[in-house]
Every structure is written in C-alpha cells, then in structure tokens.
C-alpha cells in the first residue's frame, strides 16, 4: 500500500512564500531603479549592482563559514538590502565604500542577530547610517541629475534641495527666495533633483508602492501614517512661519521620505505587527523626520527616524495588541 502523509490541518497552503514576497518587492523597485539609471547614468547601475552583489556575497560568506547554517542568499532579502542601500547613497559613491556599507548592512545589521526575521533594525539603513557617520564628505557629495550620463566619475555635484533650504534658512534667507534655487514641483515629482541614487523620483516610488499594495505585500497603514503625519507636522510649522519653514509638499517630494515611508519603514521584520501599532510607528517616524529636518544638525532625517522607531517596535508590539474577538468590556 502507498505511504500516506499525516500532518496537522490545514492541508491547503497559500501560494505565497518568503522569496515570492521578497522578489515582489524587488520587482516593485524597478521603476525607481530605471529613473535613477536615467538621471545618474552608468554610475547608478554600477553602484546598485555592486551593492547587490556585495550584500549577497557577504550573506553567503557569513552563512557558509561563520554560522555554518543553511544558505538563504536566494530568498531575495539580501537583494532588497543591496538595492535599498544603493538607493540610499549618492550614485557616485566610491565602490569601496559601497562594499563597506554592504558589509555593515548584512554583517552588523542582519546576520549578527541571526539573519532574516531576527534583526531589530533595517539592515540597509544601518549600512547607510554607518557610511553617513564614517564618510560624511563622500556621503553628502550628491551628483546632479544629467540625463543618460555614461561617465562614472565626471558627474557635476551639488547640494540637494533639503541642503539648500537648511543652509539658506540657517543663514537667515527666506524660504520663498531659496525656492528659486531648487527645481519646481513637477521636476521634484519626476525625480529631476540632486539626491541619493534611488530616492529622487517620488512618482516611481509611489508606483512601486501601489504595486505592493495591490499584491498585498504591504498594507497601507505605515506609508499613510508616515507621510500623513509628516505632512501635517510640516504643515503646522509652515502655517506658523512660511518664511522659515518650507511647505509640506516640499517635504514629501524631497529627500528620502517617499522611499523611507514606502520601502524602509514597511520592512516586515522591523515594523510592528498590529494595525494600530503600524499607525503609531508611522506617526512616530513622520514626527521624528520633520523634527530632524527642521531642527536637527542633518538636513535629512528619514534614516535616523526609522532606526529610532525600529527600536520602539518591541515595545509597540507588547503594548498595542490587536482587538480580540468578543473582548469583554472591562468594568470601571
């Protein structure tokens, strides 16, 4: 007689798997990738490839020789880390630094804690912040967009809109005057501005976000809470003093806010589990980002704010439970 299989119910399993989800994220990143290639040219392609290969290589080496565990480099998570790391650094960053960043992202940010699903902080952001603090000059030398540039080194560099505003305001110049120095909103939306390789085009990132929402890879809670709270908080300051603080739309379209809200803050492992928790997490990220941007030493605060909120995730998970079915109303 045939050997039957005995297992616990259910006997149906959804078609979803970790690697399918991960490759779904990678797929959704393609529009942003294309925009970055378009504006930063060959340099962006090289940086992205280097980061992906380096991340996968470090994961492989650590799993093979240090942990001596099963290999999971093809589950797609290392690719995401690589792409996101590349998206978060200037496109003309020396490749050696990209490799160092990848090593820190995978080694310190992910494998130290036990690999996929165990890390408290977003690995790509750990890598980025490490580079930011260790190599501030290279990390803030942003190339200006120039269509289809094939050169690797000769990019024209210049400040990002956020830097222009931050420096200008600190010198006492009114925002309305500074706004003349930065591209208009249509260009900001399309991605024609200085910045990290992949964060420039809000519209491409939104497109990827919509794809992930439709495929149910992410839920709307974190992005909406993040962007919403950032807009509201920035709006309050803008209403108080429009000459010192730029308007909310400017905040949404510049820097890494879109990329952060849609890709970095929604990272499964480092975001809260319950819906309410996700909303609180998103609001926290939004507030911190605006506070850092307006009052902090750095012109950009997305990476720091997400990392800070990552640290609160265990607390949020503990405190904010989903609503239970048939929950009895407590007396008093």
């Amino acid at each position, binding site marked *: 007689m045939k050997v*039957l299989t005995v297992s616990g*119910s*259910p006997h149906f399993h*959804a078609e979803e*798997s970790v690697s399918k989800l991960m490759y779904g994220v990678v797929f959704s990143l393609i529009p942003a990738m294309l925009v970055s290639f378009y504006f930063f040219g060959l340099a962006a392609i090289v940086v992205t490839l280097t980061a992906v290969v380096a991340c996968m290589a470090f994961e492989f080496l650590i799993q093979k020789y240090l942990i001596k565990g099963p290999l999971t480099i093809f589950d797609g998570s290392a690719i995401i880390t690589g792409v996101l790391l590349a998206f978060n650094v200037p496109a003309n960053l020396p490749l050696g630094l990209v490799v160092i960043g990848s090593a820190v992202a995978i080694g310190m940010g992910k494998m130290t804690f036990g690999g996929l*699903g165990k890390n408290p902080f977003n690995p790509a952001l750990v890598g980025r912040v490490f580079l930011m603090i260790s190599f501030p000059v290279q990390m803030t030398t942003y190339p200006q967009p120039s269509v289809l540039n094939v050169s690797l080194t000769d990019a024209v560099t210049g400040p990002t809109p956020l830097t222009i505003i931050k420096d200008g305001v600190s010198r006492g110049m009114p925002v309305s005057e500074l706004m003349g120095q930065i591209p208009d909103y249509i260009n900001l939306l399309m991605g024609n501005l200085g910045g990290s390789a992949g964060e420039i085009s809000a519209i491409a990132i939104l497109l990827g976000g919509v794809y992930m929402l439709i495929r149910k890879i992410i839920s709307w809670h974190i992005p909406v809470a993040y962007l919403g709270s950032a807009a509201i908080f920035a709006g309050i300051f803008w209403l108080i003093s429009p000459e010192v603080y730029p308007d909310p739309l400017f905040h949404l379209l510049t820097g890494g806010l879109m990329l952060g809200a849609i890709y970095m803050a929604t990272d499964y492992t480092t975001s809260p*589990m319950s819906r309410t928790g996700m909303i609180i997490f998103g609001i926290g990220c939004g507030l911190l980002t605006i506070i850092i941007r307006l009052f902090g030493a750095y012109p950009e605060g997305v990476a720091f704010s997400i990392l800070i909120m990552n640290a609160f995730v265990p607390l949020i998970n503990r405190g904010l439970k989903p609503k239970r079915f*048939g*929950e*009895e109303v407590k007396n008093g």
Partner: protein
Amino acid sequence: MEKLKTFVMGGVHPPENKLAEKQSILRLDPPESVAIPLSQHLGVPAAPVVNKGDEVLAGQLIAKGEAFISANIHASVSGKVAKIDAVIDSSGYRKKAILINTEGDKWTDGIDQDESLVTDYDLDSKEITRRIQDNGVVGMGGATFPSHVKMMVPKGKKAEYLIINGVECEPCLTADHRLMLEKGEEIMVGITLQMKALGVDKAIIGIENNKADALEHLERLAEKYPAISVQGLKVKYPQGAEKQLIKALVNREVPSGKLPIEVGCVVHNVGTSFAVYEAVLKNKPLMERVVTVSGTSVKKPGNFMVRIGTPVITLIEAAGGLPEDTGKVINGGPMMGKALNDLNVPVTKGTSGILIFTEAESKRPPEQNCIRCARCLTICPMGLEPYLLAQLTDKKRLEECEDERIMDCMECGSCLYICPSGKPLLDHIRVGKTRVGKMIRERAG
C-alpha cells in the same frame, strides 16, 4: 437580493475547489461490514447494549449515551455483531467500536421508510427534544455536539434566534450544498421543529453566495415560512464557525469563552436540521449521512449517502478508486480535517467529506524563519497573535499564553494557511492549548 453580509475581523479565501457541487447525492448499498465507533460525538462515549453474536436490525439501538453530554448510537445495517473491539478511527488511535457483519437490509419497524414529505405534526417541545435524543442526532457540521443538549436552553438564558449554518465554508466540501438543493423542504420542516423545541420565533439560514442555486432554492421555499429568513453571505473562511456566523448574521459578538446562547443564539447545521426532521417525523435514527468524496485526482468526485461505519476505502472505491499518486487522505475539509493514516477508518456521524490529495498537494511548504510579516495577525478571525502564541508555547510560557487568549483559538487553520514562511503555527498553538487547558483544569483542582 439583499446586500451580502460577512464577519469583519480577519478571514482568508482559500481556493474553493468544489468539484462535486453538480453531483447529486448517490445512495450507496450497505457495505459488507461496518465498524461503528462508540465515540462519534463530543462528550462521553456511549455504552454498548448488544453483545457479540447478537442479531441486530438497521436502526436498532446498539449503544446508549448515558451521560448528559453523550449520544445514542444505532446499528446502521442489519446483521450479526461480529465483535466489540478497538479499531483505528480518524483520530489515528484505536477506539472501541461495534463491528457488524451485514446480512440483508432489514430495518426496525418504527422507521417510516416512506420518502414523502411530512409537514404536519402536533408535538410539544419536550417530545421533539426526546425524539432527537433517542435517535442520536448530533451536530453534522463536524463538531458532533449532541443536538438535544443544544435544545435545552440553560436557566436564565433566552434563545432569540435559531441560526442555521448552510455556509459550508470549507473548500472542496459540497455535502451540505447538495443536501440543501435536494432536501430543502425537509430542512425547512426540520428548522420549524428545532424552533419549536427551542421556543424561538426567528430563524436565519446563512448561505455563502458561491452556492447561488441553493441560496435561491431555499429563499423560494422560505416564502412559505415567514419565521425563517435566508441570508446570502460573502465567501470568506471561516464563516461557518459559530461565532463568526453569528457576527455575520446578527452582528453580535459572543464573549470570549462563552457559548452562543450568551447572545441569544443557537446555531445548527443544515445537515442537523435534516437529521432532526428524519428523527422526529420519520423516527429514523442518525444511521446514515452525506459524505463528499473529492480531490483533483479523483475520477468521479461525488456526494454519497452512506451508512455510518462504512470503511472510507469503500467510499473511495465508489468514487472511482484510490488514484495512483495519492499522498494524503483527509477526513473532513482541507482546512480543519484530519489526515487519515489508515483507509479502513469508518465513516462517523461527523464525517462530512473524504478528500484525496496527490503527493504534490500533500507537501507542506518548507519551513523558514518568521519574517514577522504580520499576516497571521491580520487574518486571525479571533484577533489573536498566532506567531506569538506559537513562540510562547515553544518556550513553555503558558501563563502568558493564557493571557494572550490562546484558548480562544478555534484551530481554523487560517494562520498556517497564510504563513509565507511555512511555519507550523497551528501545530504549536494546539500543543499550547492542550497544555494551557491542563493548567487551567489543575488550577481548578
């Protein structure tokens, strides 16, 4: 048609695969021998009242349910009691059963074998409940809770609604669907009997809209019964669970750890209503039931009316035989059914389907690290945190499990279904439930 209702919290939508929904119910001849387990219902096993060598008629009482939560068991065939011995049942263990070798098909005199519909009766609530109890009717949805116990509303509580479960949210199963189409009138009469026994004046039949024909059929029949309404429901698993169905139909939430009567509802399956009709008005004990046999590799998927105690293999033969590449045989639906480890397991009162999976379909996805995607949390219909419960169970932190309401879990399997990491969440939660249950009982002393 009215707006479709559904429950709010969680839920999944597995592929429906209702391959046998067009196959009418086929009555099978009594098999050569039957093994009738003494424990086919929730509660205390029945005590045998026949001995080895006794001649029995189909429909004769062979084991009596003496405890409060227990049910009578009747011979499903006529013949000679071969022995009373332990046989492997769907639990995977050997349990006491009465084995009968079939001789002819003689039924006891009391049973009205006429197929014609009886609608008139003059019976009081007590008499209806007594006949239900005598004839060993239990919940036909799968939980097999003795039906007469549900008819006795505890003191201080009042039943307001009788809710009839025609949801059949389990994929693949079509037994209830066919029963509603073919025995709709009997079911309606059965519902009036149940309402009378309970003393309620409102009944709602909930049917998911993937059974549009049954929904329409019963809606038409219900026109004659003003007290009975039929409600279409959006397809969502596990809508057939008592608490979810009540939430969907009357928007009331049964409190944690309480029974539906707490919110004035009593839930019965359509199959039970049919069994009640036969038990009360035809005096026919629960000795046969409809079983779906289905699966992608099955030659002739179908719905069969079989005698209780028929070996599963006989049913599979009737559906075209066991396919070559069978990997798993399931008793019940694919979400909550039990995988069988032996094909001679008898059909019991709670067997709603026999599903045959190919080897490829039987494999569980490989287990990976939890990526904390929160899917299990989102889909849990009870608002629990399956990943957390599984972790706490593993670490034996049982008090915390209890605080996180592990006992609310109804083992619907949605979490394991959805998990992209292939974590055996429900397996661990079941272990946790057993342990926490033991802890609670020990504490109670």
